[in-house]
């Protein structure tokens, strides 16, 4: 269901490129994601002015500057809360959040899980490079235990988050994972996320060539087929000896969660694709419905009547 106006003229990727110079490091995975987003935005059939990109802080959060839509590059970790305000205020907007593993899972972890449970209409692109790039190379909440970085010279002792497991635990209505190097998969997953009503979380494995180069190297190239479990509805999956048919629309997330645990297993391929895609009422639609119901039941508020409510009294003439 969408209430967004359809555009009159057909737009192209170029229409979505802003005049700002893109300033990511050469070879950064962010370029691929930007290209993919610019190329499929025209296919969404939305007017440019009805699209809003919101980001937090980090390399990926520069994303909105490079798209000729409305956008806000906000503060560290808070993009989901700002996007919640935008989506709740305006039914006609298509709202995106661009964030990274530090932004979304560390400083902004609280906002992320609450956006997911509320199911606010927004598409969250979580660029996961398993490192802090903008601050020049500290370990992140998705870095593997034992990682040697500037802030962990003898290895990190933190246990990492699995973003997909976390999102499924928060009962997100749409959860997917894709990889920057596979343009076709990336585009297909992002398009499905954008079409979903509610909060969509897409984890994008993204390479940082400067501070964590090759983090996802095994998942690329000719051998990748063996390393990736490409989830599709109806795909037969086996986890811990149990086999079933993957169904992202299954209401109970238990089996989807079980699949998400595979990438902690060195002997298993890494699952990518759509883990979960269920219909659930969205926060902003319901908030607007409450306003609409109140209006339908009693009409627009009468301000004078509100001020005059309660126990009142009148003084007819100067009382002395």
């Amino acid at each position, binding site marked *: 269901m969408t209430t967004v106006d359809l555009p009159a003229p057909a737009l192209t990727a170029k229409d979505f490129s802003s005049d*700002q110079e893109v300033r990511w490091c050469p070879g950064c995975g962010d370029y691929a994601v930007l290209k993919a987003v610019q190329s499929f935005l025209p296919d969404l059939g939305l007017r440019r*002015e009805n699209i809003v*990109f919101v980001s937090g802080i980090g390399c990926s959060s520069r994303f909105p500057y490079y798209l000729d839509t409305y956008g806000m590059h*906000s503060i560290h970790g808070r993009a989901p809360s700002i996007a919640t*305000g935008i989506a709740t205020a305006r039914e006609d907007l298509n709202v995106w959040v661009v964030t990274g593993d530090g932004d979304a899972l560390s400083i902004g972890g609280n906002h992320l899980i609450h956006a997911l449970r509320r199911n606010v209409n927004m598409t969250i692109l979580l660029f996961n490079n398993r490192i802090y790039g903008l601050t020049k190379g500290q370990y992140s909440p998705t870095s593997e235990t034992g990682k040697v970085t500037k802030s962990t010279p003898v290895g990190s002792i933190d246990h990492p988050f699995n973003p997909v497991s976390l999102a499924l635990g928060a009962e997100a209505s749409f959860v997917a994972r894709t990889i920057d190097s596979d343009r076709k998969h990336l585009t297909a997953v992002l398009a499905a996320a954008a079409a979903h009503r509610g909060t969509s979380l897409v984890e994008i494995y993204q390479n940082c060539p400067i501070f964590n180069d090759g983090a996802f190297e095994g998942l690329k190239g000719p051998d990748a087929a063996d390393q990736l479990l490409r989830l599709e509805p109806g795909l037969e999956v086996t986890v811990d000896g149990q086999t079933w048919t993957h169904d992202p629309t299954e209401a109970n997330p238990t089996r989807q969660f079980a699949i998400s645990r595979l990438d902690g297993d060195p002997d298993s391929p890494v699952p990518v694709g759509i883990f979960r895609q269920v219909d659930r009422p969205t926060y902003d639609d319901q908030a607007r419905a409450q306003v609409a119901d109140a209006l339908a039941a009693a009409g627009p*508020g009468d301000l004078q009547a*509100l*001020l005059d409510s309660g126990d009142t*009294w009148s003084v007819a003439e100067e009382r002395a």
Partner: protein
Amino acid sequence: MSHPVTELDRVVIRFAGDSGDGMQLTGDRFTQEAAVFGNDLSTLPNFPAEIRAPQGTIPGVSSFQLHFASYDILTPGDRPDVLVAMNPAALKANTGDLPKGATVIVDTHDFTARNLTKVGYAANPLEDETLADFAVHAVDLTGMTVEAVKEFGLSRKDAARSKNMFALGLVSWLYGRDVAGTETYLAHKFATKPTIRDANVAALRAGWNFGETTETFAVSYVVKPAPAAPGRYRNITGNTALSYGLVAAGRLSGLPVLMGAYPITPASDILHELSKHKRFGVTTFQAEDEIAAIGAAVGASFAGTLGVTATSGPGVALKSEAMGLAVMTELPLVVVDVQRGGPSTGLPTKTEQSDLLQAMYGRNGEAPMPVIAPQSPGDCFAAAVEAARIAITYRTPVMLLSDGYLANGSEPWAIPSVADLPAIEPGFATAPNHSTTNAKGEPVEEFWPYLRDEETLARPWAIPGTAGLEHRIGGLEKGEGHGNISYDPANHDRMVRIRAEKVQRIADSLPPLEVDDPSGQADVLVIGWGSTYGPIGAACRRVRAAGHPIAQVHLRHVNPLPNDLGAILRRYDRVVCPEMNLGQLSRLLRAEYLVDVRPITTVRGLPFGAEALAHDLLTHVTRTAEALA
């Protein structure tokens, strides 16, 4: 039986009991009765932070003080003329505030040896000389209540719960107040619990009749209505008035309102109130934390809604970074801080004005924000409308500094006529505002989000959905005009100064200050801001009544300060500034005007008492006179 009736011009009553005894409700109801009767009044609820502190202990005492009079009054009163104490703890906690000759009505029911020991009474104060200075009426209110509601078959515990209504009935009789309004209120409140309703009404009537038919009280009193300008009135608390002001701001600007909030004492009632007004296009969002609450409000403002967030001091601390974002992105936003005692968790249910410097400076970088402060509970309405006017007109976050005393205190409020309230113009951008040429040399129209209105320096507010005005804003420094990221030193220097100048220019839109100096002879000026208006005004009256001129000026706008303030301060030989902090405004005024502003400070969690403040002011007046002689 007919009692003699004595006329009084003012009375201060304090109802005190356990925090579960319903003292706040009792006070509220008596306040309504006094308001409808036409008295001027001012109230001071005072309760512990714990929902149910240990029963019968001093920390668990909850009280409600009401000052009502036949003339205009400014404060809830310093010392109660009448204390209603529902247990030994309430008596012990409050006798120190009583003047000689005060009337004390005590419920004797809980005066057992155990309860007396619990609060540190070695002997029963009703039986020794402890209360010798007062007119004590020791009555078994609980016992009589239980007797009065016997027919309803309640448990003894439930029956005793109506004792607050018995006390209210008795005090209502003492001051000749009609209880019909309270009966209607009870009928409504307990509509689904008829037995409880009937028991409460019976207790209320029994209390009244007890006063009427016994000779416990030799006289009853009358306090006539106060003079008032013609118009329609209601009694209102600061939090309600502030909420109505935000609803009104939405109406006056034609904007929907989105309020993000996280529950916090004493601001939560604003969230509760606004959540009732969806018909006015008001949406409330109870966020996961204070930061998300302001984040949603900033997002809503970006989307063309009036974003609002309401909190108290600890919440403001958490919102600081997002306020800076609103300063940088120059979006309208109203941040309400209902101040309470600090630092840290501090005194959640007590009042203080100690967030002024946080409001002024509590953000990283040069991040100026207008600061507005209401001066009385009813004034919270106009102050909220003013905060929204500034936020929308100047595209800036605005801090609205209420406090616990204003939030929960109440006063009669002359209800404004909506038709008289001025409209607020959002003035959304609708078209490109800058002409340039493209690579081929052809003329092109574009939208620059950081071009400014020449007069206000406000930038255009172009909301998503407006074709052709797509743009990106954010927390990074903006290039002047075009608004793209700029790290240029000269640009940053200029933008910092422009943002400061924009806030400063708000002063050009303010009316002249009103200095209250009836004799025109004063050498001493008292300056205040926010809720000290009442106590300062009452103290000045006392000083004048003692034959000494003194002038008062009160600030609604703390940032920017009014253009005429400097000249006013310099007209007086001495400037004194009472504040419920350690001298935050006096520090600002000294820095701004190089005037030797002398602070008078209190941080007891309670408003200034007029008597003590008058004493301090008088000292300043005498010293100034000596110096001038």
